[in-house]
């Protein structure tokens, strides 16, 4: 009975004494298909669920446990990197528990811990949990936030997380560990990560808002030896550092009495520095700093409602340019060129939403993406392709 009471309180947001529970829900159900180079996938469905029963113990302390779950039967265009319909379907489940402590009205301290598992099926009929690229993530961290005002403030966070691919072991390592490849270990994809997050937000003139965020990640691989110039393996393991910086501004606008909307613009910069190299056995070439790249992103987006219509239309676009600092491009025969590998991806998305009930919207969205590269050798991985998708369904946001 008492357990039932607790469950009722958690799901209904009832208040019990000093404890106030506010449930937040987010549910998306979208079905559709994608088209890769004109070939259509079978119809699939995507479900995303987010549930957070925020437990407020006092004005100074709240607990924010968040469950996120998803099933993806069709892929978003931005997930189809490489042009590959890599996986049949996938599901992910995560739990993040954050304890929010408010001090003096302006400071917040937020320790957190979380776990996430993502399961991916590459073939039809494969059992969940058997996926080669299934992964688990365990994280813990602390974040401090300072509010200059209700509309402006900053945050600084440190997180440690471990990524483990429990099913992945190179077949090569099971048979012949002397083939001199960087991915020949047993736990080559597993890594320990330290991440620092810096964030700032403030109002802009004309009811605008600015968000700045930077993530700095240091990653150590425990079982991925560095490849040497002769193709052999060194005694030390790979380590990477990544940086991701983004700036996003948002402005409300209205055009006369008929159009109301929100305009957003975001810019992003990312880089990866890795000490891992690659040895191309076919060509006998040692490719230093194989995984290093820099990346720029710009993404405008406009949402608008027209007149008395209850429809909201959103048109967004994103352009991403990635350049590998040392990895050479290849011609169609696989011969290395003097220029470095560049990859440009442009994507657009149009979505329509119509409220059919309180907090519930009917949604339709369609995306189109182009990927262009100076890499013409595509026998292993696609760099130049066109891809599109459409999805429709419902979303519930409370």
């Amino acid at each position, binding site marked *: 009975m*008492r*357990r039932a*009471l*607790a469950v009722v309180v*958690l799901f209904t947001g009832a208040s*019990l*004494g*000093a404890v106030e*529970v*506010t449930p*937040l829900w987010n549910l998306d159900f979208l079905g559709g298909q994608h088209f890769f180079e004109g070939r259509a996938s079978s119809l699939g469905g995507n479900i995303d669920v*987010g549930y957070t029963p925020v437990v407020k*113990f006092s004005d100074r302390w709240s607990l*924010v446990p968040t469950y996120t779950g998803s099933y993806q039967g069709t892929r978003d265009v931005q997930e189809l990197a*490489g042009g*590959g319909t*890599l996986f049949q379907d996938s599901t*992910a489940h995560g739990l993040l*528990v*954050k304890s*929010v402590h408010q001090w003096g009205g302006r400071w917040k301290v937020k320790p957190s811990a979380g776990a996430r598992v*993502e399961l991916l099926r*590459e073939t*039809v*009929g494969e059992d969940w949990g058997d996926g*080669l690229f299934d992964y688990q*993530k365990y994280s813990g*961290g602390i*974040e401090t936030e300072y509010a200059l005002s209700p*509309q402006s403030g900053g945050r600084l*966070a440190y*997180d440690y*997380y471990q*990524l483990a691919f429990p099913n*992945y072991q*190179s*077949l090569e390592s*099971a*048979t012949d560990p002397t*083939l*001199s*490849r960087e991915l020949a270990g047993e736990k080559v994809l597993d*890594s320990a990560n330290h*991440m620092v997050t810096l964030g700032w937000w403030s109002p802009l003139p004309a009811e605008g808002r600015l968000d700045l*965020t930077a993530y700095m*990640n240091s990653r150590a691989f425990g079982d991925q030896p560095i490849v040497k110039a002769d*193709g052999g393996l060194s005694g030390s393991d790979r380590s990477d550092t990544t940086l*991701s910086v983004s700036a996003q501004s948002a402005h*409300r606008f209205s055009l006369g009495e*008929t159009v109301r909307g929100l305009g957003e613009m975001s810019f992003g910069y990312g880089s*990866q520095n890795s000490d891992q190299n690659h040895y191309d*056995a*076919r060509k*006998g*070439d040692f490719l230093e700093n194989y*995984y290093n790249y820099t990346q720029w992103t710009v993404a405008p987006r406009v949402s608008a409602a027209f*007149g008395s219509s209850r429809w909201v239309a959103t048109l967004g676009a994103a352009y991403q340019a990635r350049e590998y600092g040392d990895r050479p491009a290849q011609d169609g025969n*696989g011969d290395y060129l003097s220029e470095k590998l560049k990859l440009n991806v442009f994507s657009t998305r149009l979505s329509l939403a119509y409220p059919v009930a309180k907090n519930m919207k009917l949604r339709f969205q369609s995306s189109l993406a182009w990927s262009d590269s100076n890499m013409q050798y595509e*026998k*292993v991985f696609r760099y130049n392709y066109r891809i599109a998708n459409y999805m429709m369904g419902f979303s519930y946001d409370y």
Partner: protein
Amino acid sequence: MTAAIGRFRTPGFIFGALAPALLFSLPLSAEPVVVKKIRGKAEIHRAKAPAGRWAPLRPGAPVRPGDEVRTARESRTELKLDDGSKVVLGSGSRVKVVESSPHRFFTLAAGRMKSFVKNLRPTNKFGVRTPLAAASVRGTVFEMGFDEQGNRGFLDVSRGIVSLNQDGREVDVRGGQRIDFLSDRPLGEPVRGRSTGASIEEESGEDGDRQALKREVGLGMSKEMVMAAAADEMRLAEYQEGKVLIDVHGDQVRLEEYVIRRPRDAFAAANPDRAFKLVVLNERDARFDYFYYLGLFNQDLPEDLSVALNDVRGKLSAAAPDYFLTAYEMGQSNTQDTVLDQATGGHLVKITYDGTNYCLEDPTDASNTRTILADDPFTQDGDTYHKVYDPVGDRFVNLSEAQFAAGGGQSAVYDAGTDLFRPIGTSDTFWRTSFNSYSHALNGIAKQSYIPDATQGITSILALDHDATFTFAGGSVFAVTETPSGVDSLHNRVTLFYGDGAFETVNTYIISDDGKIGPVSAFNGLASGAAFKDELLKWNYEQVYEATEFEGRKIDLVVEPKILIKSGLLR
């Protein structure tokens, strides 16, 4: 989470937590208007207080007729009414309670206030007055604002109907409509839509609380996304090298393929710089199969391995190829059974065609030549057949008249000039590699082999059928070729029956990633190298090996053609 549930589970604590709330709620409910929540800073000027004396406002405080409440910038205050209604004051607002029960009248001197009117009895009224206009309602939600400096205001109605009165003119504003009112203009007509600017909810109101919580959740999720992206990046890099697919039996196969230089095998120990190795590894639920091909060339391999491997299957050129195999070893296994093919004594054979005969020459020994009739017709049981020599595969094929007329029997050779495969012509010179020694063994048992025919004084084989001496297990071999899935399917079966009573069967399939056997039509008309390779990349090659020596077990291998294309073996 645990702490919260723990609290709920303790009856004593529940009572302890509820008791103060119950006690404090009793006197509060007696007041028609009380302060429920304050965010930021808010003050109250009591009706009887001297002018200018503002006191800090606290949650739970009653707000009585004549009292005035004001909020500071970026602050918000929520007033709770005893009938369930509530009033939210936005940032920088000043509101006076004119009457609190049974009618509710407020005066908005500046700023914004949003009213959630509930359970209003028919005889009761709810109204908000600004210096310019007054709104009165029944059971609705509306927001009203007044700009003290600009001497103008607005009314946004979310639900229901609100009657707005300015200078005697009264306008009904319905849900979803808004109206602006100014000091120097008469009241206009309401229009569809909301007034510009953030509402109280967006500033800091009730939904603002929810939005703040959502933001808190969003901050955590954004970091989760960054971490998940790291996993994606690693996964994608690895995916370029291997894949999982379904084999022809419907089983899931994980596949890895490698090209290796300077292999450390004993076979290549003397000249590792001349050697390369292809490795294909297959893993299924309960089995592991692998394949390797170890090649040893006549000289050190170039930086670009494909330069050497491109010509392994022969070269159409006046000049001899720089690289050719001198030996190879090919192994297949299910970790218990093995198929081992070994060849040594590799050397080039120069082939020309005069329209009638093929001339085979040893470029290192001018005296070693052989002339072979390209087509040698014969009659059997009244029908005409053609014994055709295939110089590329170094074999003789017996064809019916119809098959011969259709151009069968001859392997095509790759013409780099046109990127097309075609038969050898009269002006061509073709180079291929012949081996002087070959052996084929199953589980270590020799099944067939050949060496140069010493009885003819042959030391270097040009054409197997003429120059080699074969040895078969039990002294003979008989081959049966079938198409078990029909002539339109890419499924072929070859069975060799040896004189010792043993057999070996190889089923070969061209299959899609989901294990479906490909149709012959998939490759119809694909003669050019590029188009052929593009089509081939959509398919996989599967070979299932059975033999008497395997005692019912099989060697079942799936190969992605990309390893052959990547290495240059397939052009």
